[in-house]
């Protein structure tokens, strides 16, 4: 699926070559929400400006997803989950992880009330049509659960109305949306991938390798300023929430302050490494290796992608 999008985007990119403008356009992979709080903070608090950068944040639209913007050179940086990035690289588009924010996996499976996802063999499980579910597909195969994946566009309605047996959710987003929709969460009906040997990092800040190599210093400064933004957000969650809500309200996003506070808290929690107990902001080679193994084994990647292919080369 990504290959198709990328081929399409690639052609667009060639048609409209990258501008020499030194502005970095950053497009997060989703609409405005606390998942990208650190970048908003870095912008609003002037960390980018202080780093000598011209940065513009432009959110994706229904007609222009983040990844296509990256390949059309309409943006120079975007956020991707590790598994997404591996798929894109496997498809022949070299990417560079300039900053890894997530240290833990946030994906969960939520079953209908009282049912254990691990005992629902062959169940109809909702999955995002835009990617993100690679790990779940691996897990379904590895655990011989043979889920029937039902791709949905964006929300949790299908599960709420009872059209699905279970659905994938992010612990910082859909998980709370489901609670907000009156779904009861228990230890039994929630399966957390991070607790079952699938703790693979997610969100990271990526650039195309070609752009990165051309604007190496700029990219490094951008990554550092973004990291500073996240660190500030962790120190000042309430002020960060204010900034997030400004972005949310500006784009008329159908969410609310309570949801965004929960999302921010959870995203910040996920940034703390389980072992070191600190925000490391680094891609872990072991997790890259684990993700590659799983995806190669389940034929989602054609080859093992090394840690070196992902990170910056000094």
């Amino acid at each position, binding site marked *: 699926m990504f290959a198709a999008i990328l081929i399409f985007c690639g052609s667009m990119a060639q048609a409209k070559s990258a501008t020499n403008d030194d502005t970095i356009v950053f497009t997060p992979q989703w609409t405005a929400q606390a998942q990208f709080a650190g970048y908003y903070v870095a912008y609003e608090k002037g960390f980018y400006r202080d780093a000598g950068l011209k940065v513009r944040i432009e959110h994706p639209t*229904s007609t222009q997803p983040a990844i296509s913007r990256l390949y059309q050179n309409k943006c120079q940086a975007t956020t991707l989950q590790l598994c997404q990035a591996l798929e894109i690289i496997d498809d022949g588009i070299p990417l560079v992880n300039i900053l890894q924010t997530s240290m833990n996996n946030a994906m969960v499976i939520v079953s209908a009330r009282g049912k254990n996802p691990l005992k629902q063999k062959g169940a109809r499980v909702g999955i995002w049509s835009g990617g993100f579910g690679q790990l779940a597909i691996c897990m379904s195969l590895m655990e011989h659960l043979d889920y029937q994946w039902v791709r949905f566009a964006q929300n949790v309605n299908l599960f709420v*109305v009872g*059209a699905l047996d279970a659905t994938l959710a992010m612990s910082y987003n859909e998980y709370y949306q489901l609670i907000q*929709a*009156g779904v009861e969460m228990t230890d039994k009906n929630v399966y957390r991938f991070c607790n079952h040997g699938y703790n693979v990092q997610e969100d990271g800040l990526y650039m195309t390798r070609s752009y990165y190599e051309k604007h190496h210093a700029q990219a490094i400064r951008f990554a550092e300023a973004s990291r500073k933004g996240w660190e500030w957000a962790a120190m000042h969650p309430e002020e960060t929430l204010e900034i997030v809500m400004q972005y949310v309200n500006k784009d008329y996003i159908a969410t609310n302050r*309570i949801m965004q506070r929960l999302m921010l808290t959870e995203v910040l929690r996920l940034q703390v490494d389980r072992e070191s107990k600190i925000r490391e902001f680094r891609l872990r080679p072991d997790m890259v290796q684990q993700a590659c193994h799983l995806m190669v084994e389940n034929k989602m990647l054609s080859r093992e992608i090394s840690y070196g292919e992902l990170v910056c080369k000094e």
Partner: protein
Amino acid sequence: MKLIQRKLSVRVSLWVVLFAAIIFNIALGFFFYQARSAVRQEAINRAMQTLEKTSLRVEGILNRVEVATNMTEWLVKRHPDVADSMFVYSRGMLLNNPDFYNCSIAFEPYYFKDKGLYFSAYSKHMGDSVRTIQGGSDLYQYFYTDWYLMPTLLDQSCWTEPYMDIDAPTNTSEMVTSFCRAIKDDNGKIIGVINTSLSINWLSQTISAVKPYPNSYSIMIGRGGTYFVHPDSTKITRQTIFTQTFEEPDTALTALGHAMQHGEEGMKQMHMNGQKCYVFYKPLGKTGCSMAIVCPESDIFGGFDHLRNSVRAIVLVGLLLMLFFFIRIITTELKPLRRLAEEAETIASGHFETKLPELQRIDEIGQLSNSFSGMQHSLVKYIEELKDTTAQKASIESDLRIASGIQMAMLPKIFPPYPERDDIDIYGKLVSAKEVGGDLFDFFIRDEKLFFCIGDVSGKGVPAALVMAVTRALFRAVAAHESMPDRIINNMNETLSTNNESDMFVTMFIGVLDLLSGRMRYCNAGHDVPILIGSGIGMLPCDSNIPVGVMQDWEYTLQETTIDPWTTIFLYTDGLTEAEDINHAQFQEKRIIDVIRQTPNEPQQIILAMTQAVHQFVGNAEQSDDLTMLALQYKRQQPHVRYQRSLTLPNDVQTIQLLNEFVDNVCEAAGFDMSECMRMNLAIEEAVVNVMNYAYPKGVKGMVNIDATISDKGLKFVISDNGTPFDPTAKEEVDTTLSAEERGIGGLGIHLIRQIMDSINYEHIDGRNVLTLLKRI
């Protein structure tokens, strides 16, 4: 508060008004409860009817959508392989139903091979015309949308949750809800979905317009609880009914959300935004949405509350007026009573003759006035009687105090009573239970004999005190000339028994201790036995005689013993043995003996120790009987004799010359002068001649012995004979102030001896008369 306590009118009025208030409260409470229930029921009916009407309106249009969609599906299935006809059907749907928002007839990927992956005939109103285009692209993969997935997954027609429909060509959006129906081929395989949408705007306006009360409002939520209609526009599509409960848990709101989600219909009473509200809810057809009307309680019960407050105010004013008039009326009615109270106060302050107001009433107050008047007369009379009685009592008390003084004065009170003597030590104590008592003790020394007594008159108080006084006087009078205790008691018994109409009697012990010899004669008339304390402790043996005053002819027996030097005789009344503590246990003889054992053998110490022991034993119990104790210690010491002569003469007065020489020699040896020698001679001669003349019967020869001893005590003559027993000391003292005719015969001799000698003592020992005359040097 003080006014309430002081004013009966206020108190009674308050009670009446309070009672009335309770009655009103109960009656009005019941009325208000019933009225409120009726208002509440009316509100429920009204709201439910409004809901019903709204629901029917909504369902009307929903049904049209459903019917139109079903019809289109029928048309599609007639030509499922002609792609272009789908544009016609889609367009026709909107042309026939101008109030529908859009219509899509979308097919499975690659259903029409020549149309590619996506084919969707999409029509939408554009002003007055309808625009029809082919929908679906890589950026709009419709088969991942809810409206496409829901009927296929649920395998039935359904309404979607409201969602934002984005029109890509015009870049406009609209919140819609869609009715979706899967299109199946002849084999039952799903080949596509028909989606007909309605603008939620229309629905929102319809529902928002529902306003049964001025401040009521409506809400609408989807299956996921999302608000699609709410007076706070910031909540629409952004919050669910549960969002607020994340930060402020609200079980009522949660319950309402679940009930609405589950398509239930009903009413809940709860707080919404800090206001008490009634929430009426009902599902909206098959859309999965649910609407609710929130009616503030203040709106529903506004009119009712106003009426209730008005009635309450009227009742309150009425009660206050009632209180005011009641106080006035009762005050007027009780005015005579107040006057009566004032007069009563005057009477109470001592003006007993104050005239009471005359009330011309026959009611309770009139009766009270009459009763009070009667009471006043009785009171005046009683006060007079009380005055007399008090005066009499004061007089009696005064008399009793005097009598007590007199009684105490009768008893010896100076101790030691004979400080000049070294042969006897005495200590006594009497404590009366009342002002005056019936106990007595007394003692005196006559002719070297100690006369002592202790007694207890039956009964207490004044009668006993009078008998005590008589008894003591008798003892003194009789013992003045009688030395034998039995005779003294017989004499007293005879006197006390005569005319003893009050049947009073006296237990008594009388002893006569010869201080020269230590011999003690005694008689016990029913009294407690004295205790002898010397080298050992023992009871004095006593005959069983009845108390004095009981039987006139009773012959009391005489007993005799010798008291060793340094022996103490302890006498007491039954007030000691029968002293009771608060548990009515008695002191008893055993404790007396214990005290004596622990106390030095000395009269004062024994009695003081005994007194203390009794007080300790009795404690706070009231003294029930008189308590009297008397202790005598005989301390005779052998005098140092430095001269001793004897002379024996026949009972012949002719030999008196020998006596005179004998006395002269002795007196000279004692160192007396001539004049004193002559006086001594006179006294001894008188005593010896008396013996010679009268001791023996006429013609019978007898002897008289005269022993003279000079010691540090003085000069002592002992005259003894075997003649008829005769005690010259028992002769009554002659009154020398009388003439010889008035005095009668005899008595002058012994009088002369008493004048010359310091002491005279008679004893009848072993059949001999022994007369001892002592002159101190």
